[in-house]
């Protein structure tokens, strides 16, 4: 069985981000990490491999060369192989283009299960999973909290839905998005880290992959980025005074009612 995991390398929560003076570009501090939700995807793939025989776990990303580090992290966790599809000189951000490239890779490399995180922490889009499935013409289930392979051709999954949970059985091939609660992603062992240090991860040119949907060059995005700006800052906090907790609360509620007008 082939399990394919798509990951994204994202700026760390703590990374400093500067908006250029013309508001057209962002400068991101060089602190990157594997997207939080994608770690659950990698972990689940490795668990499937541990539970069944003859499973190959492949991790792939469409990104600039810096994302090699993120791929190495997944090898250290226990993935078998990894590929970097170099986005330099191509449209890197439009979910339509990203999904098109990754679907092209999946189609060429082959798969039974595709796993990816429910959304990226940087743009919070949550688009690429469902779009890849659409381009490949396979079913998908979002927001998995449990996955069991029933037999070679079917899985049973539990997933979060609007105001509840559902259990469904899906015929493979299929795509699933992962989130917190599915598993506990492992910390790589030293043997894994050694393996990751040695491995040569192939870098692919998107042009070498048969892309099923539309152009992917710079400018092919269906979306124009007009500008970036910093969010408006709140005025500094108004600390509510009072002789007792009760009086403070009374003054707070008065302010919420009369000044903030939210009650």
């Amino acid at each position, binding site marked *: 069985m082939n399990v394919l995991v798509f990951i994204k390398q994202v700026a760390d929560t703590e990374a400093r981000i500067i908006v250029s003076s013309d508001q057209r570009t962002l400068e991101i501090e060089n602190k990157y990490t594997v997207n939080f939700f994608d770690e659950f995807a990698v972990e689940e793939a490795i668990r499937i491999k541990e539970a069944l025989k003859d499973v190959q776990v492949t991790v792939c990303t469409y990104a600039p060369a810096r994302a090699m580090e993120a791929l190495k992290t997944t090898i250290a966790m226990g993935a078998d192989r990894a590929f970097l599809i170099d986005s330099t000189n191509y449209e890197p951000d439009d979910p339509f283009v990203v999904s098109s490239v990754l679907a092209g890779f999946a189609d060429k490399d082959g798969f039974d299960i595709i796993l990816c995180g429910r959304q990226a922490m940087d743009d919070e889009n949550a688009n690429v999973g469902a779009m890849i499935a659409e381009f490949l013409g396979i079913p998908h289930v979002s927001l998995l909290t449990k996955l069991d392979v029933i037999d070679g051709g079917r899985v049973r999954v539990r997933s979060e839905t609007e105001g509840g949970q559902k259990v469904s059985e899906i015929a493979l091939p299929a795509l699933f998005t992962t989130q*917190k609660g599915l598993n506990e992603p492992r910390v790589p062992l030293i043997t894994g880290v050694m393996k990751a240090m040695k491995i040569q991860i192939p870098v692919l040119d998107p042009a070498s992959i048969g892309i099923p949907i539309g152009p992917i060059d710079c400018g092919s995005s269906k979306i*124009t980025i007009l500008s*970036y700006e910093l*969010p408006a800052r709140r005025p500094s906090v108004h*600390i509510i005074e009072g002789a007792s907790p009760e009086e403070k609360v009374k003054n707070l509620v008065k302010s919420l009612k009369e000044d903030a007008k939210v009650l």
Partner: protein
Amino acid sequence: MTRDIFVLVECRDSVVRKASLELLSKGRQIAGKFSSNLYAVLLGSGVKEVADTLNEFADKTIFIESEELKDYGWDTYGSALEQILKKYDPLIVLGTSSMTGRDLFPRVAGRLRAAMISDAVGMDFHEESVKIKKPLFGGKVISWLAPKAGSMAFITFRPNSFAVEKADTNGEVIEENVTVEKDRRMKTTSLEKSGSKKVDLQEADFIICGGRGMKGPEHFASLEEIAGLMGGRVGASRTVVDSKWREYDDQIGKSGKTVSPKLYIGCGISGALHHIMGMDTSKVIVAINKDPNAPIFQYADYGIVEDLFPVLPALKDELKKAREES
């Protein structure tokens, strides 16, 4: 392509979600500017009565009534929506950045080769079309995006992005018949609804959120009382969820849910960046923490520096009074 604006309306227990009414209100402005029509699209089973109520918001309400649409699935809903969009060919399709919107929109946008902009919080006009405000990196940066001319644009917005305003219309209600396609490769074997939490966390106007300072799961009962009183919801920080005091469903923050209620009250929350990124877009933020140096005070509008436990009962009483007066 027409210049019409479509809104996919979501319901919860046969009631239109507030987030959908927000989109209809904003959609009205766009349609007005473009001199085009605002359409509401409603899919489901037993939805005719609900569709009739949407005429106060939309020029035209299209509804599709089918047993196959009783519960949401991207296959059935996607098939129905695709056929409607192909028939009417609108410029813009608006939806909510809810679990349904996030699951359905990219699938159908991919199928129709449409532009997809997700999880936006605001909108303005730009040249002949619109520009969309979308936070990045947990709100550290705001981006403004525009769909390029020539393709249909799918845009999802976070709940609580716009005000709800009824239009002065008496719109037309149209029933469309389509063949709803189901994907036979998927079979739902059980569907559980958690009935207890009436308000959706992301749609709530009022959120009271507990952190490690709550000291244990048993103390969340007082937050529940206050949330119930205000018609809102209880939220939780990551440490609280990791300690299993509350369910993941309640988690606010970068690895949980992003919320923007009118009023957010943080109780015993220190204000880790992860959490701030999930609530920084709230209209008014109140922090209650005994540590005057807690980082949350840097992000709050109002603060009380005090031990939580005497504050909570007083807060309940005062909010109750304020509620009764208004």
